[in-house]
């Protein structure tokens, strides 16, 4: 956190000053570790084992915050008797279908709700359906049977306890390489900071998301925090430190293939043929929770898109919507580019040649397009791959033979345009424009507005049905200035939503209607323009308001700063303690009150109980704080919505030098794989030849650089602070391989070989894992061939394997070999990779087995 989010780290230091104990878990000793009270070196890719150990520690010693757990979680719910746990299936859950490498979730459901389970989760995987749950959980029907004593063998509490029973301190040590004593220190401190008076916070970054089991990492954290009563309370929570100025906004108002604004799903050709199919799949009529209104959100979005053309009669132009048929994600796209299926590619402030996994695949894909549009501040590697890329040196890309037509369009910087960023805690902040962009530089707003205008002009008069969607599009934004810049405030106003009759901006999403009387660009952002005021531009000084600072910017939903803050009060609505009071029920006023905007219906008393047969928000009781969950509870066990299991399970990374010490199932059996000649995945046990790539490598950021380096390697005062690509190794690994401080080393994977200067440092350590010594090395991934400082790209080493829930790649852990000296150049470099591939058995036909246990019903070959 000190390393990649230094300014956020000030709050950790504040906590430390007040006596908080800080633990840092990381494969390498970072600037954060330097300031932490206890640092735990861990084997990359084993966090579930560590956290699972904490879950077990809590449950075995009954250290959970029982009052909270009983009232606010699904611990008491009874699960179907058809459910079979990983304990009995050698690492698989019941319902595994080897032919699709996915689960039939029927058996995972609560007792009596078996029909609720998704049967074809392979389809959900392809559409990264898990992402939809960023704002809400999956629906469940009715009230499952409960056992408030938590003794029923099939109640969630007991199932959880059994599932994690093998995550003993000894097992943690064996899997993670974290010595038992260190683990116990962590477990003790964490559990001691639980209860009415105390809370603990959990902070993670991309070190968790970029894994083939990434979603389950975070799930494990959520289970701990829920068991300890750390959700919805001040000083608690799970804090995702996201890495880009508006990456939260980029999922809220997604430019993602599978989502529409506000986490509405992109229509699927088979499931969402009609508007009603689509809307019902979201709202699931008759089920509980706040998703009941999704028909209004969906209708309002289409109304915002197609304006007057969208009417209730024509289903708001739903027919115009493009449909998904499967996986259309960025990695599938890249492989399709290599295969010549894609004509044109827009890169908007993004540098996949350096920043995405498997840089070589990215560059080869771009070299096989008809045209490429790059919009950036700087001449980045993704714009010059045809000229300066590593493949030009190896002869794989020959400029005279590369047909890709490249348009480089300079972009406006953040001070040359106005608009909102949504930062990591869902806070929207408006940026004022300081000056006009230089030369031809323009904002994306300008580019897309004028591109759309021009497309519509060119199509004017077309009678082709396919062109209707463009011609009917509501695309008349006011513009201003000599550059004819469209008004960002007008766009924000549309995002907020307005009454289509009176044009009044809506006060919030509760005003959304499904009759065409409201248009809302992103329903969760509704309220950001309430009262016709740009609420995101509010900047009342922190000195003039309380510590929650509710009048600085605007947070979705409804300006709530802490989600589920009803949980900061006990079931009766009283603060758990004076120290930790945040939101509480005021019986006199008959409403919820506190420091924050209550994340609850304002006047629903704690004593409210839903009438029988209630659905939608009405079905949420007065002591159910988790209102976006269909049962108002935090889920320790997830019957549906997470594709790789109802509970987290330790799987080895897709590339690991080690056989999974916990189960016969080696890696996530549902992970998304892409068999493709360019995408050779290093062998892991039980496959042969895993010894060819004996070392574990991980990559991350340096404080001094930013992501793929475009915004730092071109900026002189940053470039000079970390001027060269390097690799960090422990003294023990240096001795084993023969590396010297400031000498060279090269790293080889099944995809690429890269070189770097060596820093031999005591900050890295080998780990004793399952009786073996495992060496890890660390690389920054900021370097590429352009800019003031250059170097090989660490991401070139990675292959493409994705998490099944959200289709994010595993680019925080891989295997490689390390050799002293510089890498070969030219064709010799290709020979070296080919030699490694041969030795590792990575032929074109090679397929990584997905299921590696007999429990799958067959020995996994290809899935």
């Amino acid at each position, binding site marked *: 956190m000190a390393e990649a989010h230094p300014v956020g*780290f*000030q709050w950790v230091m504040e906590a430390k000053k007040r006596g908080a104990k800080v633990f840092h878990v990381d494969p390498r*000793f970072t600037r954060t570790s330097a300031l932490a009270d206890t*640092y735990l070196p861990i084997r990359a890719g084993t966090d579930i084992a560590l956290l699972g150990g904490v879950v077990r520690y809590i449950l075995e010693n009954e250290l959970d915050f029982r009052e909270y757990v009983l009232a606010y979680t699904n611990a008491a719910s009874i699960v179907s008797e058809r459910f079979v746990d990983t304990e009995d299936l050698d690492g698989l859950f019941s319902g595994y279908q080897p032919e699709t490498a996915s689960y039939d979730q029927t058996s995972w459901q609560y007792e009596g709700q078996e029909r609720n389970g998704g049967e074809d989760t392979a389809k959900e995987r392809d559409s990264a359906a898990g992402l939809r749950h960023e704002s809400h959980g999956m629906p469940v029907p009715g009230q499952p049977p409960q056992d408030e004593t938590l003794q029923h063998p099939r109640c969630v509490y007991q199932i959880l306890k059994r599932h994690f029973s093998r995550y003993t301190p000894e097992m943690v040590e064996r899997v993670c390489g974290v010595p038992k*004593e260190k683990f116990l220190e962590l477990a003790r401190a964490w559990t001691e900071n639980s209860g009415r008076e105390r809370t603990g916070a959990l902070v993670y970054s991309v070190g968790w998301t970029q894994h083939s089991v990434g979603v389950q990492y975070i799930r494990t954290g959520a289970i701990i925090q829920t068991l300890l009563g750390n959700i919805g309370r001040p000083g608690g929570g799970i804090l995702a430190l996201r890495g880009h100025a508006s990456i939260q906004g980029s999922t809220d108002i997604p430019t993602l293939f599978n989502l529409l604004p506000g986490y509405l799903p992109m229509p699927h050709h088979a499931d969402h043929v009609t508007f009603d199919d689509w809307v019902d799949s979201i709202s699931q009529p008759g089920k509980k929770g706040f998703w009941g209104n999704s028909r209004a959100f969906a209708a309002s979005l289409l109304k915002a898109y197609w304006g007057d053309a969208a009417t209730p009669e024509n289903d708001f132009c739903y027919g115009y919507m493009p449909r998904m048929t499967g996986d259309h994600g960025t990695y599938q796209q890249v492989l399709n580019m290599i295969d010549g299926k894609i004509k044109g590619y827009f890169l908007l402030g993004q540098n996949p040649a350096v920043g995405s996994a498997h840089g070589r695949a990215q560059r080869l894909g771009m070299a096989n397009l008809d045209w490429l549009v790059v919009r950036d501040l700087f001449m980045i590697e993704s714009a010059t791959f045809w000229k300066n890329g590593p493949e030009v040196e190896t002869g794989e890309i020959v400029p005279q033979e590369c047909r890709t037509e490249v348009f480089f369009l300079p972009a406006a910087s953040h001070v040359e345009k106005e608009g909102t960023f949504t930062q990591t805690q869902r806070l929207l902040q408006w940026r004022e424009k300081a000056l006009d962009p230089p030369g031809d530089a323009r904002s994306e707003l300008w580019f897309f507005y004028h591109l759309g205008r021009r497309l519509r002009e060119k199509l004017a008069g077309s009678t082709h049905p396919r062109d209707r969607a463009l011609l009917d599009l509501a695309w008349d934004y006011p513009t201003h200035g000599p550059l004819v810049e469209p008004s960002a405030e007008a766009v924000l106003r549309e995002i907020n939503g307005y009454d289509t009759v009176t044009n009044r901006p809506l006060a919030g999403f509760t005003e959304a209607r499904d009759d065409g009387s409201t248009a809302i660009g992103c329903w969760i952002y509704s309220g950001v323009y309430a009262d016709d005021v740009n609420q995101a531009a509010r900047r009342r000084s922190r000195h003039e308001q309380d510590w929650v600072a509710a009048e600085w910017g605007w947070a979705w939903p409804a300006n709530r700063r802490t989600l589920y803050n009803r949980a900061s009060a006990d079931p009766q609505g009283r603060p758990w303690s004076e120290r930790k009071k945040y939101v509480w029920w005021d019986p006199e006023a008959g409403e919820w009150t506190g420091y924050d905007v209550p994340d609850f219906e304002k006047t629903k008393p704690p004593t409210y109980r839903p009438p029988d047969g209630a659905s939608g928000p009405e079905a949420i009781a007065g002591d159910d704080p988790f209102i976006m969950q269909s049962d108002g509870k935090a889920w320790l066990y997830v019957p549906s919505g997470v594709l790789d299991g109802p509970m987290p399970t330790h799987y080895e990374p897709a590339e690991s030098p080690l056989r999974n010490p916990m189960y016969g199932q080696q890696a996530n059996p549902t992970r998304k794989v892409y068999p493709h000649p360019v995408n050779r995945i290093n062998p892991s046990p039980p496959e042969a030849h895993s010894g060819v790539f004996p070392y574990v490598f991980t990559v991350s950021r340096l404080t001094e650089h930013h992501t793929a380096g475009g915004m730092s390697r071109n900026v002189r005062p940053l470039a*000079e*602070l970390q001027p060269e690509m390097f690799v960090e190794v422990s003294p023990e690994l240096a*001795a084993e391989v023969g590396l010297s401080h400031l000498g060279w080393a090269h790293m080889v994977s099944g995809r690429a070989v890269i070189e770097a200067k060596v820093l031999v440092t*005591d900050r890295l350590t080998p780990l004793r894992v399952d009786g073996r010594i495992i060496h890890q090395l660390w690389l920054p991934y900021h370097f590429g061939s352009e800019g003031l400082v250059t170097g090989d790209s660490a991401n070139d080493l990675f292959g493409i394997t994705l998490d099944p829930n959200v289709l994010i790649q595993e680019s925080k852990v891989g295997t490689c070999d390390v050799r002293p000296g510089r890498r070969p150049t030219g064709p010799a470099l290709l020979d070296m990779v080919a030699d490694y591939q041969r030795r590792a058995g990575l032929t074109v036909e090679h397929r990584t087995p997905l299921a590696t246990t007999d429990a799958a019903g067959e020995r996994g070959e290809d899935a």
Partner: protein
Amino acid sequence: MPDANSLYGPLDPAPDAGWADAPPRMGFFTDTSVCIGCKACEVACKEWNDVPASGLDLLGMSYDNTGALTANSWRHVAFIEQPRPAGHRTPPFAGNPTDGPVSAAAAAVAAGTGNDTGTDPGVPPGDPAAAARMAAGPEFLGMPGAQPPGRGTGAAERTDFRWLMMSNVCKHCTHAACLDVCPTGALFRTEFGTVVVQEDICNGCGYCISACPYGVIDQRKGDGRAWKCTLCYDRLGAGQTPACAQACPTESIMYGELDELRERAAARVATLHERGVPEARLYGHDPDDGVGGDGAFFLLLDEPEVYGLPPDPVVTTRDLPRMWRRAGLAALTMAAAAVAAFVGGSS
């Protein structure tokens, strides 16, 4: 009129330099125990003061690729990797299958690197043995055999480790030799008690560079002038905080009235001692020290020289009156000898 302590001893320097209604003396307190080594100070300084590039070399000095304070780096974050215990913290590598530490050897290698800082003398190479001792521990200093058992004796494993970081800067000494020796008045004492090079005056004579007991001041090549931290004199005048202190994420760099900072520092040391960090100590805070106390002082976690600071600097002007007297004596001797040579001879 100048104070009796005008050249040495405790002094409030601004009134002594003719600022009749001087505001309170302003300064920095840099608490290295909360420094996260992010280098925001280095960058914020460069951005505000338009400081030029200072080299693109990988120095291998842990994460320090700046090397030293130079005319082109007015803040410098030092990084020191030490296989030694850190206060009350749990040993980071306890239980891991480690061999002996490498920090000292790596530091020795890094002593030989250089950086094209665009300044003179910039970042000269160092002594590998002294670098090794930096990492292995100050116990080696002049006290052979005094190191605790198991340290520096080729121990079979390393469990302890700490990573020291420290943002170094001009000390804005009470008795600033650089200022006193400056023949043009380019270096002067501001009303805030800080020491500033006036870029419109400096003619690059280089005297200040030799006079500074901290090795702070340096000459920019091509430009020829001496440059260093101004404590953002222009910002101070506008009532603003210096750029580095404003940027510092963890308040490692604190800016304020020096008296108040000294109190805060004393309290911080006491707190750290209470919390089991006995190695915390202040540096440059004492008005009775050899430079009359620094306007920018530090809380350190190791001996000063580990961070590249002199352990006991004394301003050269302490001896200036005696120097002039000696020179006068020599001059008189010369004159007498000359007279004698002409008067006393026979031929």
